[in-house]
């Protein structure tokens, strides 16, 4: 997995609550059998009209934010379907940090499997960020967001921080516990399906 350390960019402000994964990547684009190439489908129904033209009033289509790597949004971001395609689409489009007041559980854990950093801030901090027009820097090592006029610290669990900083392969880590897994299986009361 790709590691994440630091990023500096303008903010894309999507000031909405309950943005579900059906909006992040609609179902008609879930049929690809690889992980790449989902960026063009990100927020598809909000980004394009029914003829496939860009909608000028949607924030992602504003030229100012074309190279933005930081999305700032509201409560319960990523709710609904478990589709990891949502995380793949955000990353492939160019985002590497999502800042929100809260994240849906499955989306939140999907982020850490792919090197996308989700940051939870309070509503006051978020509403200030929505008005931030300059470059801001997100520094994971020091857990600091630097804006034009302040520094905001953020919380992240230590092991999750480590996973992102080092880009760790989860499965390789787990397979080191092979002996414990085998021992558990010997004790298990639950029979096989077949």
């Amino acid at each position, binding site marked *: 997995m790709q590691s994440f350390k630091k990023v500096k960019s303008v903010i894309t402000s999507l*000031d*909405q*609550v*309950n943005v*579900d994964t*059906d*909006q992040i990547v*609609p*179902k*008609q684009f*879930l*049929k*690809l*059998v*690889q*992980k790449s190439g989902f960026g063009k489908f990100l927020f598809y*129904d909000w980004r394009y009209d*029914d003829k496939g033209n860009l909608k000028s009033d949607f924030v992602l289509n504003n030229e100012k934010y074309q190279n933005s790597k930081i999305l700032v949004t*509201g*409560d*319960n971001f990523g*709710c*609904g*379907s*478990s*589709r*990891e*395609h949502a*995380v793949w689409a955000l990353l492939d489009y160019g985002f590497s940090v999502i800042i929100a007041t*809260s994240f*849906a*559980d*499955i989306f939140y*854990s*999907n982020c850490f*499997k*792919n090197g996308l950093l989700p940051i939870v801030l309070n509503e006051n901090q978020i509403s200030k960020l929505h008005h931030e027009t300059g470059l801001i820097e997100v520094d994971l090592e020091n857990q600091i967001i630097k804006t034009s006029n302040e520094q905001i610290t953020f919380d992240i*669990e*230590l*092991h*999750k921080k480590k996973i992102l900083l080092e880009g760790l392969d*989860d*499965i*390789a880590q*787990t*397979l080191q*516990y092979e002996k*414990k*897994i085998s021992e*558990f*299986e010997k004790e*298990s*009361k*639950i*029979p*096989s*399906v*077949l």
Partner: protein
Amino acid sequence: MGKTLFEKIWDTHLVVEKNDGPSLIYIDRHLIHEVTSPQAFDGLRINNRRVRRPDLTIATMDHNVPTNDRSLPILDQTSAIQIQALEKNCSDFGIQLFDISSPNQGIVHVIGPQLGITLPGTTIVCGDSHTSTHGAFGTLAFGIGTSEVEHVLASQTLWLDKPKPFEIKVEGKRKDTHAVTAKDIILSIIKKIGTAGGMGTVIEYRGDGISDLSMEQRMTICNMSIEAGARAGLIAPDEKTFDYLRGRKYTPKNYETLVDYWKENLKTDKDAKFEKNFILHIDNIAPQVSWGTNPGMTCDVTESIPSPEDFSKGDHNQKKGAEKALEYMDLKPGIPITEIKIDRVFIGSCTNARLEDLIEASRIIKGRKVSPHVRAMVVPGSQMVKKQAEELGIDKIFTNANFEWRESGCSMCLGMNPDILSPGERCASTSNRNFEGRQGTGGRTHLVSPVMAAAAAIEGHFVDVRKWM
């Protein structure tokens, strides 16, 4: 101090416990489908890894399969490729697959219990958020992403932060159990606690309002736990649970020994403590109809569309959300729910496409005809449900009323197959999500119970189905 049911299942599945991070828990059953698994199998191949326990892994194809004649080829090439990929992956890695021609094919959360794969006290995962359905059996069951699918395939375990136990008590008796259903109970709960109300928790549904329910109704409740934002939802097993699973295709040989163990161990202790509590009294609840673009935007069938001010109770963000929802739904505050005309009716999905759902809906339809401007379809949850319904003659009741009677799959719940709404079409749907575009770009979804959907199909608009009983 005592433990909750969830904590007991958690504790008996700990492989590695860590105090400063997630714990490694063992997964007893892994269900696979065509949409969220191909990238996981690719990951195994790239790293030269095997599937650790193919004997604990079961696959079917449900999300994108067409629901018309099964002997016809799949016209959508991308769907066909995904289905072929699942066939190849299951064959390469030795996984049992119920493919499109199997009598056991169906929506993964419908076939698990029907086949006796779902068992009390176990852990079940699937790359699908509605895995919470299996919680109806006293199972810790939850949806995961594709990376976690790969992790479970490789290790039969998962790293998980321990969720908090959340008690939801459902108390009282519904006045008309045919008109006010499990769907109305769970929509009432989500309406009250909100779509993020269960975040970070595992809900245990308790009380006489829950124990009165059949297993199929309990599945409807647990199914929509994710719509309240919960990681999972579960119900302590009782005699109804044990009876339901007895004698099914994959019910274990030592079942009665397991039942004895479950009776002793699978209940919340009297002195256990929940982190959160909520009580719903159901004596007077009405049939529910969603009016917005998330399942929390729901009201009684007797009410009118609320104004964003009333709905949001002073929360600026919720108000904005409601305004956006009403614009998308093309509805105005003050319109009575019963005056909303519909174009389509969908009876299906892992929420409400089991035999009992179809029987209940058919009681409403019998001897009546679908309104001439409505297109209505029934998509049974599995091939087994379809066959059982046909043996009871229920298919004829639907087709005589001009409903389409189709093959099993997820179908118009998420519109990955050809069953979709056209832009602007309005649908009474027994599914679980009314998100923008969920059933088709520009389509408008109203979530209801099977009997409410059936009555709406006949009248062409929503009606209070209690008056039909």
